[in-house]
């Protein structure tokens, strides 16, 4: 496997970029593995990587129905931050952000992490109180957070309309300077390449159609490419978690919804931070290609169709123009949808399921991308040890029985 470096780049440029090696193998699935991971998105691939690296379990297959990173990993708005309100969330998202900060070096793959700062705007006194409270909560948890008054905000992001005459005047904002964006495809590809290098089989075009369960213990999975035995099976399938768990006889507190995003035509650099607004509800950043990348809330109805309704993005653009009148003449280029699995408290579900040897990492809903490295890291620990990682423990499925919910609806700095 080629180690990427400036020297490799120069050598490949010299030969016309025709000899770059493939990044991962395309193996036929073996009849049995120690661990089978269902879902080749960022979270599943990261789990495989950390299983091999941290726990010495390389006899792992990642089964992906389509192509890796083709689901929500390739459909999100690439925002990375850790400024969550509650201690449990702050701990796991900050764990993730710390891993992000060393990820390009760790994977020898440029994930293009750009810590350009994430603003969460406040538009009324309720928002201001919530924002200031969250800043203090973040600081107590060792997470960088600042409160910006409108004048400071205007200096930080000059194109934002902070005039008192605005329909929804901006009264201030929280700022996490370590937040920003990362390249979504690169995260999947980087983890895939690094996991493959350690012996993990990444099997694409392989759909799981059933589970083999004997005496309350999982023995393997039935797939479109034949039966695969496994000691442990991990479900990391985002919007399809409920469908898979139902095959194993497990009911989940999840509802699948479309979440839409869209990009504008590319323009010259105009927005050098991430701006999120809960109240008028849009989040915007500018990609390295110059496109403005935007997202908002989910479509209200349940769906697996990877598309939503037009009035959702119409509202989203109205919110965008409210904040940035300067974008009035931009044309939108593409829009798409992903299927997100929303849990009742907007927090993920990580841990063992009632079937022995079966694990779930899901319920990330609208905010899973930022958690990719941390999610994979704690989930690999949970699978390898058969007991939850300390950061994952509060996120067990059991909390819906005990009532110890981690209610990040509204508290997570963006509505869902």
């Amino acid at each position: 496997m080629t180690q990427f470096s400036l020297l490799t780049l120069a050598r490949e440029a010299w030969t016309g970029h025709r000899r770059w090696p493939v990044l991962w193998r395309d193996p036929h699935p073996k009849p049995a593995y120690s661990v089978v991971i269902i879902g080749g998105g960022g979270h599943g691939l990261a789990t495989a990587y950390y299983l091999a690296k941290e726990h010495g379990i390389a006899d792992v297959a990642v089964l992906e129905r389509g192509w890796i990173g083709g689901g929500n990993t390739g459909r999100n708005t690439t925002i990375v931050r850790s400024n969550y309100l509650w201690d449990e969330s702050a701990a796991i998202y900050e764990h993730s952000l710390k891993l992000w900060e060393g990820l390009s070096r760790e994977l020898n793959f440029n994930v293009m992490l750009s810590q350009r700062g994430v603003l969460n705007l406040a538009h009324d006194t309720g928002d201001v109180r919530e924002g200031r409270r969250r800043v203090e909560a973040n600081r107590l948890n060792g997470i960088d957070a600042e409160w910006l008054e409108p004048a400071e905000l205007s200096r930080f992001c000059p194109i934002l309309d902070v005039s008192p005459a605005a329909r929804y005047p901006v009264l201030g904002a929280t700022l996490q300077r370590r937040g920003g964006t990362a390249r979504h495809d690169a995260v999947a590809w980087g983890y895939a390449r690094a996991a493959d290098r350690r012996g993990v089989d990444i099997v694409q075009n392989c759909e799981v159609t059933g589970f083999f369960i004997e005496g309350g213990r999982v023995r393997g999975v039935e797939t479109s490419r034949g039966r695969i035995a496994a000691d442990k099976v991990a479900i990391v399938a985002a919007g399809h978690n409920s469908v898979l768990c139902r095959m194993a006889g497990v009911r989940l507190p999840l509802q699948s919804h479309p979440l839409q995003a869209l990009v504008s035509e590319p323009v010259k650099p105009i927005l050098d931070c991430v701006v999120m607004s809960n109240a008028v509800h849009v989040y915007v950043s500018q990609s390295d290609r110059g496109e403005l990348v935007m997202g908002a809330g989910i479509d209200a109805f349940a769906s697996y169709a990877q598309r939503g309704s037009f009035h959702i993005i119409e509202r989203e653009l109205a919110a965008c123009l409210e904040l940035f009148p300067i974008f009035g003449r931009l044309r939108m280029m593409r829009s798409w949808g992903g299927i997100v699995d929303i849990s009742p408290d907007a927090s993920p579900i990580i841990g063992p399921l009632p079937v022995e040897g079966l694990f779930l990492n899901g319920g990330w809903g609208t905010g899973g991308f930022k958690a990719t490295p941390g999610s994979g890291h704690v989930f690999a620990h949970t699978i390898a040890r058969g007991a939850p990682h300390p950061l994952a423990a509060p996120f067990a499925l059991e909390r819906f029985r005990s009532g110890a919910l981690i209610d990040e609806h509204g508290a997570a700095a963006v509505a869902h």
Partner: protein
Amino acid sequence: MLLIPCPWCGPRDEVEFAYGGEAHIARPADPDALDDAAWAEYLFMRANPKGTMRERWMHAAGCRRWFNLLRNTATHRIVAAYKIAEPPPADTE
């Protein structure tokens, strides 16, 4: 964008409606008899089917009445709408 056939008002645009999630979840007859697992099942656990789903909608910008819809979550095709007290029609897909 869905065109939803309200049983009272006829077909109307989706923006007129509010969504109410999975239908036919009956409130426990004897709440005092429920243990934590049964409460979790009632409050949180959902079928979340890929395919035909029975779901509640409310015509918020119209008659303001709740009704049920039989809709395919994979294709968005609406199979039938029926009133709250009526039994769900057979899935004709």
